[in-house]
């Protein structure tokens, strides 16, 4: 660029006084600067984005594509013997009643999460704003479950639900409800509910935090104005707090639904899908097929189905959310 400019000046000097008119230099120079800057920008973009994109591309994007690819094969995963099977794995999957049980359990978990964790989280968040003494202490304890590792929670609750010395049975005994005592995780009827209660224990504090953050963000003036009009606290909640919390409720629902669809750790530790597949989830079934039974092709088809289901559910939520926003 600098060279160009010099040249121009020299030429201009040489031809001083002649009638020859040179074209104005500006467009050429801007064009070249732009090109050069674009080139420089390109390398900045590559240099800054490249490393992250590489890792993300390899572990996430490439892996999803490969999951689909592997799902088209009959393959143990231990040896190199792969037989192309087309969509056979998916056809088997549709006829596999354990898969349907696990899908059903996943949706049960979705419903239970929405109906227990969110309301409980909201109640806890609202309590944090009530004029109770020692609220800081309450809040600290309320939040603690979320910091514990899922594995630790799973092991702790195995003992809590234990049929012989578990504290749940101890409490029932104290209340005179001996007939209710049982080995909660060993029973096909109760195992899934025992797990769901544990999931609720773990995640309600998380939603409490989200709701608390949202309530803090509500302008104080709104409540002051409502008070001037003599609104009761119930009315204030229904007319101010709740409507303004709707975006947070939607975000929380998305998190809760997606979380429930990919749930694995707790079930794996507590019941490993048992007894008799009654707590099987898509993820635990995938793990079992892949790493216990060595059906890597079939396991991949379960994996990929999970991806499609999660994608589908997310899209539905997004479309609904857009519609709601449009309606407002």
């Amino acid at each position, binding site marked *: 660029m600098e060279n160009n400019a010099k040249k121009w000046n020299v030429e201009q000097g040489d031809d001083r006084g002649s009638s020859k008119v040179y074209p104005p230099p500006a467009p050429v120079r801007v064009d070249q600067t732009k090109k050069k800057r674009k080139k420089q920008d390109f390398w900045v973009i590559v240099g800054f984005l490249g490393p992250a994109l590489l890792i993300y591309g390899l*572990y996430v994007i490439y892996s999803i594509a490969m999951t689909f690819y592997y799902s088209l094969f009959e393959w143990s995963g231990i040896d190199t013997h792969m037989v192309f099977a087309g969509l056979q794995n998916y056809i088997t999957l549709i006829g596999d009643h354990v898969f349907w049980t696990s899908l059903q359990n996943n949706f049960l978990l979705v419903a239970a999460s929405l109906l227990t964790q969110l309301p409980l989280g909201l109640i806890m968040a609202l309590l944090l704003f009530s004029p109770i003494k020692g609220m800081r202490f309450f809040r*600290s*304890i309320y939040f603690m479950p979320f910091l514990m590792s899922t594995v630790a929670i799973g*092991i702790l609750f195995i003992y809590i639900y234990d049929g012989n010395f578990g*504290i749940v049975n101890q409490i029932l005994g104290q209340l005179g409800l001996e007939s209710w005592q049982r080995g909660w995780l060993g029973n096909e009827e109760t195992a899934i509910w025992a797990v769901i209660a544990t999931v609720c224990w773990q995640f309600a504090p998380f939603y409490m935090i989200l709701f608390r953050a949202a309530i803090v963000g509500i302008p104080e003036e709104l409540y002051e104005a409502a008070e001037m009009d003599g609104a009761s606290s119930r009315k204030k909640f229904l007319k101010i707090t709740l409507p303004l919390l709707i975006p947070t409720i939607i975000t929380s629902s998305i998190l809760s639904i997606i979380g429930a669809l990919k749930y694995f750790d707790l079930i794996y530790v507590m019941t490993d899908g048992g007894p008799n597949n009654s707590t099987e989830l898509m993820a635990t079934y995938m*793990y079992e097929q892949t790493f216990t039974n060595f059906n890597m092709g079939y396991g991949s088809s379960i994996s990929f189905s*999970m991806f499609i289901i999660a994608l589908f559910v997310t899209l539905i939520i997004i479309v609904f959310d857009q519609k709601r926003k449009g309606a407002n």
Partner: protein
Amino acid sequence: MLNRIRQIPLYILAILLLLFTGLPFFVMVSTSFKTQIEFMSAPWSLPESFSFENYRLLLESEFFRFFFNSVIVSVISVVAVIVLGAMASYPLARMRFKLNRPLFILFLVGMMIPIHTTLIPIFLLTKNMGLYDTIWALPGPYIAFALPVSIVIFTQFLKDLPKELEESAKMDGCGPFRLFWKILFPLLTPAVATVAIYNFIQIWNEFIFALVLTNSEENATLPLGLREFYGQFSVNVPGIMAALTLGSLPLLLIYLVAQEKIVKGIAAGSVKG
């Protein structure tokens, strides 16, 4: 007085919820101080004398190896996520180019992907890279799955910084890398804290990748190690409770020290995600 009476239901509710959330912790910690014989005779009563025997045994076990594995893996992953995430966010937040929006959405999608969908290829990839059954197998997937949230947080923050910062730096002849690290990155501190806290909790407690990508006891992280303990000593309930308590202690201690920051970090990390 009337106000006080009105508050009674609130207190009852608050205390019930306190029991619901706190009782399992209380049981865990109090049992960890019992001897096995004491536990057998009265499983859930308070310990009669505080015995540190369970903790002493833990110190002699593999526990600290698990602990250090977890520290190494978590710290490396979190630092890498901060560096790579912040760098990637710079062009996404402050430069115009054709692929900007598509790339950002590509990262966004990562937040709804069930990690299990990638488990089998990552398992095979790790084997091919020769990293299987080493703790070095873990940072890769941890970084990859932490990037989306981190990039969302960083880009949002970077977008709010004034444009003049770069212009004046460019006038002084500052190159893009120096501009980013010397001028923009120091201003990102609050976002860095959020990203670090949010991801540290997730990675510290991560289980399934550790389960699939490592095998031997010496390479186990803490969650995996706890499960190992449970498998070996499940009869020794007080011993297991001591392991669970000690394993949960680091995050709980950090929480006690930096409560507000952690709570804010989690709220920001998830809502933006």
